[in-house]
């Protein structure tokens, strides 16, 4: 049974049964505006000490500034997403109608796509230059949702959407699934909620899991990539629970010293360009600085997640693998530069 509004769907008459009724997009847009209203509500309640949430004037305004740029660049670059998936859809293997079951299917598959998009976004510097913007705040509240990349369409990871369209899901159905995914992720950017019921924490992404994801503590780095279903992290070995004895330090390994939205949005690209333009590098080194994990260095003084974890283990007296990187003091210097 197709999921269409009473009276039928004009769009699907024109674009075929795979096209969701536009009413769902209007509902998603209204939901987005309503969710945005939760930000001032959280701020009001937090400032009255009724909620556990910390807001900082400069940080919050920087989030809004970055959001304006993100919306603008999404507006002018979204054709890259729609162009790619539409092209793939024209060569589709199947005609999948838009029904409740096909939506659940595309939602689950898109959530898996999101997991890998997110994981690659953390593990390779070119993609991290785009996604790292979202992690650059040292606060974690609902306004952190606003701090989004300006270059997500430009990085190339939109190609991960192509397989779904090629299978036969309509580009609009894929976009709707992703919209619902992002709407879900709004509420998990908060310190206000401690833990959800155990079954919920096991199955779904929660504020607790996502606090860990935003942590710069070595233990928490590069974990909990899930959008909605935590099953992907459990399946692919990236799940890390929040520990009561280790409060999350939000932000980057090397934090920013600016609230300027342009600097926030582009800082990693500029740092990467500086590294790539060094005259004392081989092309292999340059590939490392471009595609290697954030913190990779050609001289071996890595400040990658693995190296930082090895440092921490070294300090705690826990044996670590020998290939994690250079000496501890070297790494401290590398992390600072």
């Amino acid at each position, binding site marked *: 049974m197709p999921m269409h509004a009473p009276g039928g769907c004009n769009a699907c008459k024109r674009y075929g049964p795979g096209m969701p009724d536009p009413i769902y997009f209007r509902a998603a847009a209204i939901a987005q505006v309503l969710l945005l209203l939760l930000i001032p509500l959280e*701020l009001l309640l937090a400032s009255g000490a009724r909620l556990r949430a910390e807001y900082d*004037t400069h940080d919050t305004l920087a989030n*809004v500034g970055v959001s*304006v740029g993100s*919306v603008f660049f999404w507006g002018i670059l979204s054709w890259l997403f729609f162009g790619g998936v539409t092209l793939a859809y024209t060569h589709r293997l199947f005609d999948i109608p838009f029904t409740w079951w096909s939506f659940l299917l595309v939602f689950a598959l898109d959530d898996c796509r999101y997991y890998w998009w997110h994981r690659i976004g953390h593990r390779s510097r070119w993609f991290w230059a785009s996604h790292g913007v979202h992690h650059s705040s*040292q606060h974690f509240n609902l306004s952190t949702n606003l701090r989004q990349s300006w270059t997500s369409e430009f990085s190339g990871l939109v190609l991960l959407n192509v397989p779904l369209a090629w299978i036969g899901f309509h580009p609009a159905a894929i976009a709707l699934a992703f919209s619902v995914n992002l709407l879900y992720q709004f509420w998990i950017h908060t310190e206000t909620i401690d833990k959800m019921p155990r079954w919920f924490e096991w199955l779904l992404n929660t504020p607790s899991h996502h606090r860990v994801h935003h942590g710069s503590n070595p233990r928490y780095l590069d974990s909990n990539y899930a959008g909605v279903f935590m099953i992907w992290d459990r399946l692919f070995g990236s799940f890390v629970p929040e520990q009561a004895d280790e409060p999350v330090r939000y932000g980057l390994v*090397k934090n920013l010293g*600016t609230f300027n939205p342009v600097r926030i949005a582009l800082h990693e690209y*500029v740092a990467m360009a500086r590294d790539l333009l060094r005259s004392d590098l081989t092309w292999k080194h340059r590939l490392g600085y471009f595609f290697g994990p954030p913190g990779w260095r050609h001289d071996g003084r890595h400040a990658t997640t693995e190296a930082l974890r090895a440092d921490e283990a070294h300090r705690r007296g826990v044996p670590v693998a020998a290939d994690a990187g250079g000496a501890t003091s070297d790494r401290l210097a590398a992390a*600072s530069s």
Partner: protein
Amino acid sequence: MSELAISIAINVVLGVALLAILRLKRVGDTVRLAGAAEAVELFSQRFPAVPGDATVADDGRSALIDLDPGGRVGLLQRHGRRWNARALEPGEVASVEIKETAIIKLKFADFGWPHAQIRIDDADARTRWLQRLQALRSRHA
């Protein structure tokens, strides 16, 4: 195009509303360093087991920490309500200058953390740190 304009307008209205609440509720950026011990403790959260004596700025907004005699300098700088730590190495400081008599102004070759200011009223301490910081610049300049 109208959807893009509406989306941007919603963000702007949201920003104005948040700013109004932040002002109304006096959510300030009021953190200050209480002393050298606190500065070292905050710095060691980012750089564990790094020893050093700290000089806290007179406005309590930053501190300089002696990491290696004659070598690296630790910088702790207020960033809103948080503290940023950085171990300054030779070549990292693009320029050092004195501003308004007592303020050491640092510029970094770093797009994400372009500058810092440290107010040190004591002339001897200021001169000592100025020389240390200038040495970080001159080695690679």
